[in-house]
């Protein structure tokens, strides 16, 4: 790694100078295309991005503010809206918390140890990604619903899971659980186990090794996973819709409320909530970019 820059740079500069491009008609860069082709490609990209990304985003905010700032804020301060925001934050906190612990532990086990059934575990972690969210929600209905597997027992003990906050949290946890683990597994596999071995040979216990060596090395990856997990937890619609029961002011999360309000032709209220979700998306995007930069910098080149 250390010796790499020397040879190619000297070779590159020598050949670069000898071909100092006297005829400007010849294209400066071998990889580039003629002007018209470039123009068409760029135009297609711009149009595509505008239609599919920028316009919808602008529309959300335009609709939200269509009756002015006052209507916007009164829509947001409606008790129903506030309750949905509170519920969404609460559910996101629960699922991020649980998935953080689960994801770090799972990634640690998968990346640093060899054991039987490892491949199975990796596929299981991916399961929520490959199953439709609606199905994920239905699974919980089948388990906890009145006619469901545990339904009778739960009813006799007066425990409400379905059509209540626990059910929404469960469905969200299920749908979002791959995020942290998925962000960490490749990172931890790439880092290998040498630093952990070094720590152990220096007398560190397992926990000391984890908290002093493993965790600091993956902290940006953890944040990255948490960020994506949070974004999905707040935005989840399908699974939550199935288990929520849509009890107004009680079990409506923000995405559910957006739909309900829209169906009731309350466009300003609907888009006001939607604008919060859109802002969440934008913040997530910015934070993600910053974190990715941190992650890249965190990858010190190994020496071979």
């Amino acid at each position, binding site marked *: 790694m250390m010796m790499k820059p020397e040879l190619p740079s000297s070779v590159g500069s020598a050949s670069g100078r000898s071909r100092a491009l006297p005829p400007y008609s010849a294209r400066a860069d071998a990889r580039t295309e003629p002007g018209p082709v470039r123009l068409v490609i760029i135009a297609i990209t711009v149009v595509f991005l505008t239609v599919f990304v920028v316009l919808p985003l602008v529309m959300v905010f335009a609709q939200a503010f269509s009756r002015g700032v006052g209507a916007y804020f009164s829509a947001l301060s409606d008790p129903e809206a506030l309750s949905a925001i509170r519920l969404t934050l609460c559910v996101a906190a629960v699922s991020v918390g649980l998935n953080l612990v689960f994801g770090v532990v799972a990634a640690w086990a998968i990346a640093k140890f060899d054991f039987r059934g490892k491949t199975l575990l990796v596929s299981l972690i991916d399961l929520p990604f490959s199953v439709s969210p609606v199905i994920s929600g239905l699974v919980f209905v089948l388990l906890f619903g009145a006619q469901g597997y545990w339904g009778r027992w739960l009813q006799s003990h007066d425990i409400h899971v379905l059509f209540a906050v626990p059910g929404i949290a469960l469905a969200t946890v299920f749908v979002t659980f791959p995020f942290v683990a998925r962000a960490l597994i490749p990172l931890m596999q790439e880092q290998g186990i040498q*630093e952990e*071995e070094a720590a152990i*040979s220096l*007398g560190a216990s397992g926990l000391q090794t984890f908290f002093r060596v493993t965790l600091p*090395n993956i902290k940006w990856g953890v944040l990255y996973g948490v960020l994506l997990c949070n974004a999905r937890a707040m935005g989840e619609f399908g699974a939550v819709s199935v288990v929520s029961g849509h009890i107004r002011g009680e079990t409506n999360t923000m995405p559910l409320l957006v739909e309900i309000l829209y169906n009731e032709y309350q466009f300003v209220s609907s888009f006001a909530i939607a604008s919060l979700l859109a802002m969440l998306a934008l913040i997530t995007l910015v934070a993600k970019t910053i974190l990715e930069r941190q992650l890249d910098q965190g990858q*010190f080149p190994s*020496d071979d």
Partner: protein
Amino acid sequence: MTIEVRNLVKKFGGFAALDHVDLKVGDGELLALLGPSGSGKTTLLRIIAGLDWPDSGEVSFDGENALAHGAGQRHVGFVFQHYALFRHMTVFENVAFGLRVQPRAVRKTEAGIRARVGELLDLVQLDWLSDRYPSQLSGGQRQRIALARALAIEPRILLLDEPFGALDAKVRKELRQWLRSLHSEIHVTSIFVTHDQEEALEVANRVVVMEKGRIEQIGTPGEVYDHPATAFVHGFIGESIVLPVEVSDGCVRLGGEALNIAANGAASGASKLFVRRHDMQVGPAGSGALQGAVQRVRAFGPIQRAEIVLSAGAGATVIEIDAPRDRELQSGDIIGLQPKRYRIFAVQD
């Protein structure tokens, strides 16, 4: 601290990384485990460190069973091939790590830790780097920090896995000498793994040559070079000319023709004749046991290296010899060759 390894076996799947290995290391020795990749040398080192566990066999330190303890309790300093420095810690914190993770009862005070780390950084002559991060160091510097970190816990044994493997030739040479002088200073029993024979011969007091999970020979650098115990050792250490010969009744034949050399008690049958390049004496055509034509000569320093096409029954075999420059060879010369010193090993299988 003495180390004794008895009847160690370690298999990875069907592959025997260690095949009944016995080894004794004396107190204060600087021992090299030398062998090609896949010979089991690193596995042996890792088992001694407690980073791997054998399938069967014993490892003891000063007569005490080491396998009863995990890596952390063995007080073994381990220097990894790619250093394995903690990338998120400064050089200072890297070296201090072993001191900081000690149980509270025996842990040094902060001032004590600072003093000890300072001492170690002085020892490896890198005290000026204490605030840097590993990514800001050169390979040679990282290697020395890794060593300082391993020494921080006052190890009873120091184990180094390919300590100079990832360094360029010049730094490697400097560090070799440095390691030897460091060893004579601190005198801790040390084992290092290498695939580089020059490194092993130059640095170690004793060399253990390994191949396919077995120990081929244990001896001083002089012994393994001058008196290789097996064909493998002869071929692996130093440059050798190898010729397939047939031994029968004390007569050595190459391609059916008798060579004018003694069999030195080698058993009858298919064998291999090993001669060091510089042990081939050049004489005029017609003299010596072998005849050949010089194909190409490269002269550098005190020697000239010549490619010789052997005539006779050898079937146009090309060998390389190192001859002194008292008589310059020209390509096309027909010369006679006489092995001054040689070994004959029976072909096994």
